[in-house]
């Protein structure tokens, strides 16, 4: 058979290939890049240590050096601080639940009361049924790779727990950066279990499914609804909303107190 005929047959064979409809990747990329652009000013501020040092030096000069050298200014600044102290004393001290604090040992979260005494709030204790595992263990559990939200820039999850749903091993990724949800110290919880949404999260919950809204995550079907009707990994009180979708053979559940559009944008960035 001449080359030309064989090539023609190969092209014909190529025309029989089924390709799924091309998703609008360009649009998704655009919105991802736009989000990064929005985050940039904050990141630049944090990225350049020189700027931070300059800020610290300026603050030092204004707060310490100038008042020390100038008695007049010293008196004025001193007055200001006294006034500030008086004002602050009237407000309750708040435990910010920062990510920098040692967290995730399921130990009680502590804060300071008005009088400076340590207090424990049971509501701030995250409740995760599974065993806490390392990122390496989590990756091994999920066949080598974890799906992570790329926007907003949350970085790596602060804690990872093993979970088991409908006889499948999965992982629970806990993010604490950003606004915490309710009284919990979690800002976002992403659960990943190999399988379908129905068998993983909705099995035996026939009454719940009609209450969920059907949504599309990058063209893939998903559900959006009140988390109070589904088991939550968030702790108490549970977040207002949950988003369920399937991606790369993994059933995902995103729990966060976020508006639908924002949750969908985070879900669409998961890779």
């Amino acid at each position, binding site marked *: *058979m001449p*080359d030309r005929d*064989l*090539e023609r*047959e*190969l*092209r*014909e*064979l*190529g*025309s*029989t*290939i*089924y*390709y*799924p409809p*091309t*998703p*609008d*990747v*360009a*649009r*998704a*990329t*655009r919105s*991802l*890049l736009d989000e990064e652009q929005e985050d940039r000013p904050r990141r630049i501020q944090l990225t350049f240590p020189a700027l931070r040092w300059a800020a610290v030096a300026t603050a030092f000069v204004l707060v310490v050096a100038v008042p020390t050298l100038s008695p007049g200014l010293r008196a004025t600044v001193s007055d200001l601080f006294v006034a500030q102290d008086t004002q602050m004393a009237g407000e309750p001290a708040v435990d910010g639940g920062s990510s920098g604090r040692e967290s995730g040992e399921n130990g009680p979260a502590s804060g300071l009361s008005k009088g400076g005494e340590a207090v424990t709030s049971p509501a701030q204790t995250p409740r995760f049924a599974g065993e806490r595992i390392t990122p390496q263990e989590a990756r091994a559990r999920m*066949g*080598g*790779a974890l799906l992570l939200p790329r926007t907003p820039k949350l970085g790596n999850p602060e804690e990872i727990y093993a979970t088991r749903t409908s006889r499948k091993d999965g992982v629970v990724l806990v993010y604490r950066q950003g606004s915490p949800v309710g009284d919990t110290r979690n800002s976002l919880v992403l659960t990943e279990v190999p399988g379908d949404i129905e068998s993983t999260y909705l099995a035996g919950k026939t009454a719940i499914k009609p209450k969920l809204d059907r949504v599309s995550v*990058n*063209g*893939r079907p998903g559900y959006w609804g009140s988390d109070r009707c589904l088991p939550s990994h968030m702790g108490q009180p549970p977040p207002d909303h949950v988003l369920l979708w399937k*991606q*790369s053979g993994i059933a995902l559940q995103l729990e966060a107190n976020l508006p639908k559009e924002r949750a969908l944008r985070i879900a669409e960035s998961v*890779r």
Partner: protein
Amino acid sequence: MRGYQEVAFRTAYLITGDASEAEDATQEAFVKAYRALGRFRSGAPFRPWLLAIVANEARNQRRAATRRSGLFLRAVRERAPENSPSSPEAAVLAAERRDELLNAIGGLREEARWAIACRYFLGLSEEEAAAILGCARGTVKSRLSRALGSLRAEIAKEGDAR
């Protein structure tokens, strides 16, 4: 990017064999390409450069999914041709011929299969195929020539066996 997304997605789909992985790979590649635009040589053709990034991301996805290569052959079997022959007999014969060709392609080495996929299935130029395969244009030419020769031999072997 919109003008390139179809060929990029299809390339990724042939490599990963999975629509959502192909989508992820394409998006990741677009983001990387955008960030690397400063390193892109002005005057050089953009499509091969972009497709090379897409192919690389798709291979990473496939590796992450610990999946074996050669999945595009499965994709080929999933659909009947658009211009199906009119008579049922001709359709059967055409389907047999496609299977025969497909089996012959399946018997080729992976590099030869990909050279064929790039040139005849995705309809890419030699330069684009070279970018995806990470080799020189001349290497694509020689791989294709060898692949066609091997295909002819395979088809003849199958014909003799009948």
